[in-house]
């Protein structure tokens, strides 16, 4: 496997595929696109590519759609011989979300995650996560539920502007 100009071009295209659950983010923003390589036996003029994706959660149901979208978009750009493979190591983390991705999340009303760091420790007693409201910017917010509409989000509410909002959890 080698990284070539064609592979780099293909990576740019594959990186623009939107995430099925967070369509304001691309696979590149999310850090799900783990690399694109040109298959060696294909020679320098060939277009046979392997696209590596790293799934988010173990139960993420969107992997098939992501892979199909990648193949579709690359096919439209002339890359017809594309294999999608999953890369599980290193595991995906919210730390892989790019700065551009974090800005897009906030613009869509979803509070971006804090740095994940080590595995989340067991916290007993009241915890104070400092989260700014993506609507009005106030830090006076509270968690309603740690689990939301998708595996990656929690439900929050702003006490200043009274708006509910979602927040992406660190993992």
């Amino acid at each position, binding site marked *: 496997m080698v990284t070539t100009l064609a592979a780099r071009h293909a990576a740019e295209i594959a990186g623009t595929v939107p995430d099925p659950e967070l369509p304001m983010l691309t696979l590149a923003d999310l850090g799900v696109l783990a690399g694109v390589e040109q298959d060696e036996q294909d020679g320098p003029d060939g277009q046979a590519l392997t696209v590596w994706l790293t799934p988010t959660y173990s139960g993420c149901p969107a992997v098939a759609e992501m892979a199909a979208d990648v193949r579709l978009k690359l096919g439209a750009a002339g890359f017809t011989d594309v294999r999608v493979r999953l890369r599980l190591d290193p595991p995906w983390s919210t730390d892989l979300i790019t700065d551009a991705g974090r800005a897009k999340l906030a613009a869509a009303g979803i509070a971006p995650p804090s740095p994940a760091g080590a595995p989340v420790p067991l916290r007993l007693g009241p915890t104070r996560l400092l989260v700014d409201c993506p609507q009005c910017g106030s830090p006076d917010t509270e968690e309603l539920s740690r689990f939301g509409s998708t595996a990656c989000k929690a439900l929050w509410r702003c006490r200043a502007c009274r708006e509910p909002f979602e927040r992406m959890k660190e*993992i």
Partner: protein
Amino acid sequence: MTDRHAPHGHGVDDHVYLGLAQSDQEAEARWAYGTGFADPLLGVDTALAPDVDGADLSLYCQLLGDDALILSQRLIEWCTRAPELEEEVALANLGLDLLGQARLLLTRAGQADGTGRTEDDFAYWRAEHEFHNVRLVEAENGDFGYSIARLLVFATARRALYLRLADTRAELDAVLTSVAVRGAKELAYHQEYAAAWTVRLGDGTPYSAQRMQAGLDAVWPLLDELFTAHEVELRLGVDPAELRAGVLEELAAVIAEATLVVPGAAPMARVGGRAGREGVHTEALGPLLAELQCVAREHPGATW
């Protein structure tokens, strides 16, 4: 789940979504999202580490995968029955995490022993005595207190096991290690959720404390099986007995915070020395499997 006839590594090619997406405007095709499943180990390197017995690794993946699959099924039974909408969403989310772990582990089990059995073969086409889950996860949900007590025990023990696997047995199998690394992070949320409810109910009203204590008391006899090694765990050098002291310490800390009492109940008896790991289950597993398996068995090989 996966198309049982798809050649490995190309399962996604036949995905229904692709056909729809090609025949329609890209954005319009998104309604098809979630209608299909790809091989959860699509294109992952399937080679075994040297000196690892494939049959042993397969069986170990089944032990862990069956625990996750069966508890996932119990958790989703709370849909439409939970005390609040938020808890329903939360329990379904936890079930989804466990289902994801089960899919990876059971797919790996079919690769490791060379039989090529898929996750569907394991989930839908095995009989009750061929399931290796501990009896803890198959017990009926009971009330919310019991389900929380069971979740607290399972999440604490499984996170400890995943952390140990990732830290000290990473060379055993790359796929198993990657499941453990990511699973430990997911289970931290499960553990925290269960611990928060244990404290909220235990340190709540006298009645909520009584119900939470009753849940812990009823779960406790099933704790022992989590730390009782199956012979395959001994052969692979992953004896769960090593986790017992640390897990009990974590559980005791939560129970103390909840102003409850660590139960002293004796372990549930084994049957001729055998229990869930050896395929000897309680009467709760049969009806669970009947529900889990009925559609696949009524319409073998069906896709939609």
